[in-house]
Every structure is written in structure tokens, then in C-alpha cells.
């Protein structure tokens, strides 16, 4: 048990990790360039044939890294697009990825906060109320097997009809997706105290609330953080999914989709990587909080 408290989980990128990260990234970049050649070659050969031009292998490779609609854009193409849409575009512009990222992030965070809260509340209920455990848990599980994309439009329509538009419907969908890992992790965590530790509370005739705050909660924290890291990534996915039926107006999801309508692979990839960076940053943030909290709890180094 004591060790579970110290479970480090995933760590963020810290200074000490810079070298390994750089080396691995470099390896991946090389792989990526190679994959771009491999995947785009057919189209490039077609294009050369269409122009009736002679070509060498060098031309082919250069061509695969410079297509307008490649199957897999080369890293520098994506980087250039990201630079253009993140740095070179005013953040108020609709072409700015910062603007779209913020739209998505705001509903992600709102949904994540609500989902975490809901997840914890449900877990607490399930652990403490037998009737809830038996009647609710199977239905919570069933709820997660409902394809969200199928009911997202209905959610949007229904919420829209009661006057909720914009941020909230998207956050609701994030909440719906991200509360689940929290429930599952917390139910496990809240039940993780060992029997002797529970017995001790019994000898004090501690109330349910006291046992909860003084024993169950601290024991559940490592489980909670493992869940939160998963949940925040899922919450972002939820926000992006929710951006489709809201009319795909703004947000990284809308960008992705719009890119997809027009086969703009470079745009898709830059939105995708921005989303992934955002997710990684959020996960890293959770790790930081986790480390701080577990250290305050006397975690063994």
C-alpha cells in the first residue's frame, strides 16, 4: 500500500529528460521522413507521369516531401503550417490555431472538471451505498458503450432546445466520456485500504465521512491520478468529437474536419499534432500536480 502512494505514473517532460526525448524524437523524425517517401511515392510517380517529366530518385524523394496533398506530409511541411497558423497568425483570426486550440481547451477543461467531480461523486456513492453499487454500476458501464458520436447530435439538439449553446453542450460530451475512468479508478482506489487500516477506523467508530477523508481518500489518490491522466486526454477527445455536430464552427475538431472535407492533409496533421501537444501538456500538468501531492503525503523517494 505504502508503495502505491509513491507510484510515479507518467512523468512530464522535465529538464533531465531533455536528452532522451531529443534522441528518441530524432529517431522518430527519420522514420517519419522515410514513411512519407514510402507512402507518397505512388502519387508522386503519377504526378510525374502526368507532367510527362523524367525523374530521378532524388526528384522523387524531394517530390514526396513537397506535395500539396500528400498521404503523409513531411514533418517540415507540418511544422511550417503550424508555425504559420500558430505564430504568424493573429490569435484573433479564425485561421489561428491558438484561437481554435483555446476554443477546444475551454470546453475540455470545463468538461474535465465536471467529469472528475461527477466521477468522484458516483464512486463515493457506489462505495458507500450498496443499492447504488448494484443498480448504478452496470448502467454506468452500459452508458459508456453507447457510441457518443451517435447521441452527440441528440444531446446538442436537446440542450439547444433548452437554450444551452456553445461551450456547455461540448463540455457535457467531454464530461460524459471522461467521468468513466474516474469512477472505475476511484471505486478501486476507495476500496484499496488494507483491512487492518480499515479495522483501525472501526475501533474508533469513525463515521463514514471520517473514514473517507482520513483513510479512503488518501489511499485512493494514486488511483485517482492514474485515472485523471487518462480522463483529461479523453476529455479532449470528447471536446473534439463534440465540435462536429455543433456545426463544426470553431475548435481543433472543426479544423480537423474541415481539413478532412478538402483533403488538406497538412492542415489535418497540424491540427492533430496541436491537439496531441495540448493533450500531452495537460497530462504532464496532471503528473506535476500528482508529484506535488504525493510528495506532500510523505511519498517515499
Amino acid at each position: 500500500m505504502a508503495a502505491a502512494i509513491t507510484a510515479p505514473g507518467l512523468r512530464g517532460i522535465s529538464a533531465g529528460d531533455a536528452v532522451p526525448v531529443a534522441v528518441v524524437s530524432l529517431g522518430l523524425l527519420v522514420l517519419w521522413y522515410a514513411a512519407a517517401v514510402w507512402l507518397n511515392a505512388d502519387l508522386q510517380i503519377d504526378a510525374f507521369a502526368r507532367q510527362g517529366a523524367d525523374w530521378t530518385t532524388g526528384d522523387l524523394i524531394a517530390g514526396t516531401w513537397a506535395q500539396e496533398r500528400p498521404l503523409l506530409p513531411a514533418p517540415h511541411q507540418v511544422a511550417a503550417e503550424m508555425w504559420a497558423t500558430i505564430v504568424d497568425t493573429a490569435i484573433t483570426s479564425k485561421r489561428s490555431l491558438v484561437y481554435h486550440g483555446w476554443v477546444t481547451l475551454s470546453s475540455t477543461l470545463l468538461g474535465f472538471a465536471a467529469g472528475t467531480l461527477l466521477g468522484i461523486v458516483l464512486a463515493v456513492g457506489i462505495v458507500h451505498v450498496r443499492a447504488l453499487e448494484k443498480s448504478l454500476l452496470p448502467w454506468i458501464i452500459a452508458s459508456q458503450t453507447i457510441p457518443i458520436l451517435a447521441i452527440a447530435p441528440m444531446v446538442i439538439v436537446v440542450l439547444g432546445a433548452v437554450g444551452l449553446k456553445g461551450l456547455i453542450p461540448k463540455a457535457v460530451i467531454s464530461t460524459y466520456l471522461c467521468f468513466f475512468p474516474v469512477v472505475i479508478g476511484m471505486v478501486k482506489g476507495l476500496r484499496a485500504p488494507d483491512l487492518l487500516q480499515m479495522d483501525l477506523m472501526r475501533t474508533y467508530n469513525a463515521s463514514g465521512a471520517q473514514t473517507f477523508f482520513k483513510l479512503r481518500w488518501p489511499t485512493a489518490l494514486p488511483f485517482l491520478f492514474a485515472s485523471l491522466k487518462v480522463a483529461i486526454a479523453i476529455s479532449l477527445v470528447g471536446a473534439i468529437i463534440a465540435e462536429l455536430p455543433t456545426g463544426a464552427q470553431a475548435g481543433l475538431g472543426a479544423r480537423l474536419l474541415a481539413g478532412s472535407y478538402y483533403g488538406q492533409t497538412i492542415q489535418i496533421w497540424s491540427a492533430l499534432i496541436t491537439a496531441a501537444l495540448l493533450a500531452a501538456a495537460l497530462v504532464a500538468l496532471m503528473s506535476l500536480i500528482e508529484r506535488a501531492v504525493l510528495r506532500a503525503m510523505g511519498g517515499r523517494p
Partner: protein
Amino acid sequence: MGRRRRPGAAARHPREGGPGELSLPGQGAAMAGMALRMTQTLAPSPKAVVDIEGLSLTFQTNDGPVYALSNVDLRIAQGDFVSFIGPSGCGKTTLLRVIADLEKATSGKISVNGLSPQEARQKRAYGYVFQAPALYPWRTIERNVTLPLEIMGLPAAERKERARRYLDLVNLSGFERKFPWQLSGGMQQRASIARALCFEPDLLLMDEPFGALDEIVRDHLNEQLLGLWDKTGKTVVFVTHSIPEAVFLSTRIVVMSPRPGRIIDVIESHFPRGRGLDIRETPEFLKIAHRVREGLRAGHAYED
């Protein structure tokens, strides 16, 4: 009241000494036990703190039942200091856990302070020292000790003061800010003793509290505990493996047989309340110790 005792236990363990029922100082005879029981309703002194009759407990496990306790009769009066001694695995911990309402008996009767164990637990009738320290790893030693006080709602200043006092009693001053894993095994055990003492319960249930301590600290804590018991008139139920410790501390020593745990002997030990460690050299002390050892040995012989 005045229930008839079942004869089983006595008949099955025809050893010298009372067959379990403890009620009068001196060799507890069955008849005397009954007599007291009957007077008790009239004049409730000395009050029975723990009253056990025909208690049995069976654990169901993956490969068959384990008979942990069988037909145990025991009565502990207020102010008693009772030690359980018996071979490893004989059911001492289980019996203590039944008293503490941490385990439910399979059959038989038990009352604590005249109430069911559950009610007694809900009234916070006792402090319990587990066989393992069971400290919470995320709390410092001080905050582990003040845990019961927090639960019982004492003010912060009072909590701090009590933690100071009892950590001092168990020689752990200076370790308030450490976490459990930074302490040695014996220190952890002492912290858990301080935790049980600090809310000053009238009934103390202690499961081998001094097992991991050296003789000197042990002697010291024996004296402290005896002093506390003497001053406050607490009732103590104590599990130990040390015969001298049992004889030195107790007013009664309950010797148990191997699984299924039964009481095979109850030995009185009448040293004056203010006794010192030196009594351990007296012939009377040695005589009692010898009798306890004999009982234990017989229990072991019983097994093979």
C-alpha cells in the same frame, strides 16, 4: 441474567485451575462464577467489562473451514489486567478481535460493558493496539498519533499536547515529523501504542504490543503501562508471548490451547498494585511463571 453455564468447556479441559470462567479472585470455580453472576444484578460491582459465554468462531476459507475459537467462556471485571498467552495461531488475536467487534462470533454470547460489542465499539469503549503497527504512510508520526483525537473531535492544541505526552511516554520524542517508513520496526510499534493510549480509553485491548522491543524498553513500557493501569483503573486485555511479562503485568493469565483455541487454564497473579520489576526474582513469581509454562507446554503436546 443468571444464565446456566454450558458444562462443555470444563469437562473437556480437566486441568487444574478454573476452566475459563473468571469472576472471583482466587481459583475461579464454576459455582463461584455463577454466584457472582447472580449477585451482579443486585450489586453491580465489580462490573463485568467483558463477558463471554460458549463463544466459537469458524473461518471459511478456500480449502475448508478453520476452527479458530471453540466454546470460550471468559469474564473480565473492571480493573482487571488479563493476559492471553498461547501457541502461535491459537486464536488470541481472533478473540481480541471479537471483543473489539472486528470479527463476529459464529456462535455464543458476548457483551462488552453490558452492551453488544458493536454498541460498545460505537461508544468508543476501547483502544486497540494491533499486532502490526498499521500506521498510515501518508501521515507523520505525530499525525498518526493524533488520528483518533481528530476523529473524536478534540481541539488542535489538546491534540498536540497529548501527542507530545504519549510520544514521550514511549520514548519517541523527536520523531514527530518523521513518516512511518523512516522508523525502525520497534519505533513503529511504539508509535501505534501511543496512538491507542492517547485518547485514554477505559478498556485497552493490546495485541503483542511489546513484541518488537528490546528488554530494556520493554521493561520501561511495562512499568509505564502498569503505572497507568494503577492510576486510572483501566481494564487491560493483553496478548503476549512472554511468560515473565504476562506474570509481571497481569492479575489473571489466560492460557489457550492450539487451534481450535480453547481456554485451558486461568492463573491468578496477586502481586501488589505498586509492584516493581524486582518481584521477578521472587519465588512466587517463578512459581506462577512455571505454571504458565507448564500450561503452554501441555497445549503444545495436545497438538501433536
